[in-house]
């Protein structure tokens, strides 16, 4: 952030709110027309806040359906979005899994639904704390997926997401996720933008005709989703979902730039956000709330003379392959820190697998060391993160993997057992 931008930000009023409340305010600012939701910890305060808004007449014209399950929640937003309205919901962990069928459906129908996810660990045993395995498990549904690392970013990203999703060249749904409790239930100052300015950045849906590819209109009767033979266009439709995801990268970058111009807050290039990566020898790729704390760890180690830097991964889908390749050219060792699991995969961590895949063609750049930490909300302290960086530096210096590596991955912060 430049000095002029800092001034710009400080002039605005902010209120101290929970991450979930920031998500609710974003839905309000975005003038969402249909919301359907079902309570699940740690998402609950989103639906509570929206109820408060709706009951007090602060969201005029918004239909809010209190559903009986997440499967129905997603079915309802699909129905509403198909009819050409801006829709929103929020859920977590088990709710995502229960709605999985409809999550595929939304992407197949190419509906620009935006969903806030307060991520939590999958059961059993029951877990309600930060772990991105829930949202990452939806990797292959066709949804775009991004992570927020702070409260303001939740509000901002939801606004940006609508702009990307509703673009007629894209038309895909998107998850905006943030760590359960760590962001959802802690409070920090968040700037809520003037409605006029938000309307300028994200205008209410302009026409009653609905989306260009799908609509409900008795004057233009349309069949949606009937059976299609293998010899017909199913295969091509699937390709188009992938194509839209890839093309969305440019759109995300464009919208991030536009957002910065309008509101003065910078989120890197939209896909990734580098932090002190110039002249770094060791870097880490990290996402979600831990990325914010990692900035502090990088600062502290930089003060001690370590040449370390970090990259905040903002988007998981579409995956910023090109950016990751460029980042990997800057450093010798690249740690990839997951707060999620991909059991039985090459590294055990979903993002580290992706990074390894992205770098496959680019030999001679950084060596990747996968790290997993903080599963199911296990605390990851600043000291621990500094140690992770030091381990990576040592690996660079000695060429030896840390001793506690399991199957090629550093599972950091395991309990000591005899």
């Amino acid at each position: 952030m430049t000095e002029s931008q800092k001034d710009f930000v400080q002039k605005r009023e902010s209120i101290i709110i929970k991450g979930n409340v920031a998500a609710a305010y974003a839905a309000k600012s975005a003038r969402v027309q249909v919301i359907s939701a079902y309570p699940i910890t740690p998402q609950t305060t989103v639906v509570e806040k929206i109820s408060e808004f709706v009951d007090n007449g602060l969201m005029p014209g918004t239909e809010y359906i209190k559903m009986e399950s997440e499967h129905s929640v997603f079915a309802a937003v699909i129905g509403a979005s198909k009819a050409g309205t801006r829709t929103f919901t929020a859920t977590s962990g088990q709710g995502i899994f229960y709605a999985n069928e409809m999550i595929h459906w939304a992407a197949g129908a190419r509906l620009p639904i935006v969903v806030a996810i307060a991520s939590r660990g999958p059961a059993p045993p029951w877990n309600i704390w930060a772990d991105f395995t829930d949202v990452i498990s939806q990797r292959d549904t066709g949804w775009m997926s991004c992570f927020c690392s702070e409260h303001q970013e939740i509000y901002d990203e939801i606004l940006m997401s609508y702009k990307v999703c509703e673009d007629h060249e894209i038309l895909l749904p998107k998850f905006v996720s943030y760590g359960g409790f760590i962001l959802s239930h802690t409070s920090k100052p968040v700037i809520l933008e003037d409605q006029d300015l938000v309307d300028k950045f994200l205008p209410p849906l302009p026409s009653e005709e609905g989306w260009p590819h799908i609509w409900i209109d008795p004057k233009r009767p349309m069949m949606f989703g009937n059976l299609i033979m293998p010899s017909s266009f199913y295969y091509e439709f699937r390709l188009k979902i992938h194509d839209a995801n890839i093309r969305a990268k440019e759109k995300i970058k464009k919208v991030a730039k536009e957002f910065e111009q309008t509101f003065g807050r910078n989120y890197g290039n939209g896909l990734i956000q580098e932090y002190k990566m110039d002249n770094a020898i060791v870097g880490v790729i990290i996402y979600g709330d831990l990325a914010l704390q990692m900035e502090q760890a990088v600062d502290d180690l930089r003060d001690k003379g370590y040449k370390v830097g970090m990259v905040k991964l903002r988007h998981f889908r579409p995956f910023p392959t090109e950016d990751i390749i460029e980042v990997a050219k800057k450093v010798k060792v690249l740690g990839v820190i997951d707060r999620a699991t991909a059991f039985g995969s090459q590294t055990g961590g979903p993002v580290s697998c992706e990074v390894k895949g992205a770098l496959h063609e680019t030999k001679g750049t950084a060596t990747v060391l996968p790290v997993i930490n903080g599963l199911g909300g296990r605390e990851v302290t600043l000291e621990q993160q500094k140690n992770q960086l030091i381990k990576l530096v040592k690996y660079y210096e000695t060429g030896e993997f840390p001793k506690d590596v399991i199957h090629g991955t550093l599972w950091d912060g395991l309990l000591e057992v005899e």
Partner: protein
Amino acid sequence: MLFMELSGMVYWRLNKYMVKLREALKSCQEEYFLPGNSCCAGCGLEIALRWAMKALGPNTALVTPASCLNVVVGLWPKTAPNFPFTNMAFAAGAAAATGMSAAFKAKAYRFPGSGWDEMTSLTFAGDGGTADIGIQGLSGAAERNSDQIYVCYDNEAYMNTGIQRSSSTPHGAWTTTTTKGKDRFKKNLPAIMAAHDMPYVATCSISEPLDLYDKFKKAKSIKGCRYIHIMAPCCTGWGFNSEDTIEIARLAVKTGSWILYEVENGIMTLSKASRLLLDPSKRTPLMDYLSKQKRFANISEKDLIELQEYLDHTWKRLEADLSCQDQYPK
């Protein structure tokens, strides 16, 4: 004198019937479920949807969860329905229609005067999509009084996947998963829906198209969540000749196996075709209905007796319910 009076009554009744028929036929010229669809010859569903749409008219957005209706509309990109039609996941019919109905309200707010408030959200689901996998979503929609008409076209098994038992399959019936006849009885879904205190619940049969037409007209005029259950025999799954569909559906009503009624705000009224059957002697013998269907060809004597007892019991209970109801403050 008596003769005159009687003949006058008959004439009056006939006349009333004719007027209604004429009116119905006039407003029924428009076809919404077009010929050339992929229904089996003699499909009960086709008749049900055709007449339902005639009553509901063009401002109707239909959602259908997985069922025969997904397939009989034709293969993409061809299609038979001449109105907005959405295929939906199996458990998601009522919820998707809820979302649509909310969207119509939101659009009516945003674009006033453009007719969005005149839209009817309609779910058209099979008995599996209603009584089994879809019951949670349906119950939720009913409890919220979501503004939609939910229709179950009941062919008493999973016909689209190849005649597997559903909770709506009757006792003793053969299906590919009840090869010795189903041991349990048919789930009484209209009663379950009526227990939700919905504004309108009705049962129909494709053998009584005017009754069906009237009930849909009435449902359309009511706001909130409305439930209509249509008996729609399946010649393929039940094992009868395709030209006998109406006859079989009529026998289901005449034997008292399928009871036609309406429940408006908790008050039940038997429809004309079923009203007379409160007198057991007016009921056609059950065997007349069962013997025409191959699915009951190997029904055991025990199952047969149980089925008859169940039918008698159902009517006795109905009679008791109706007589209690007479004492309700109107």
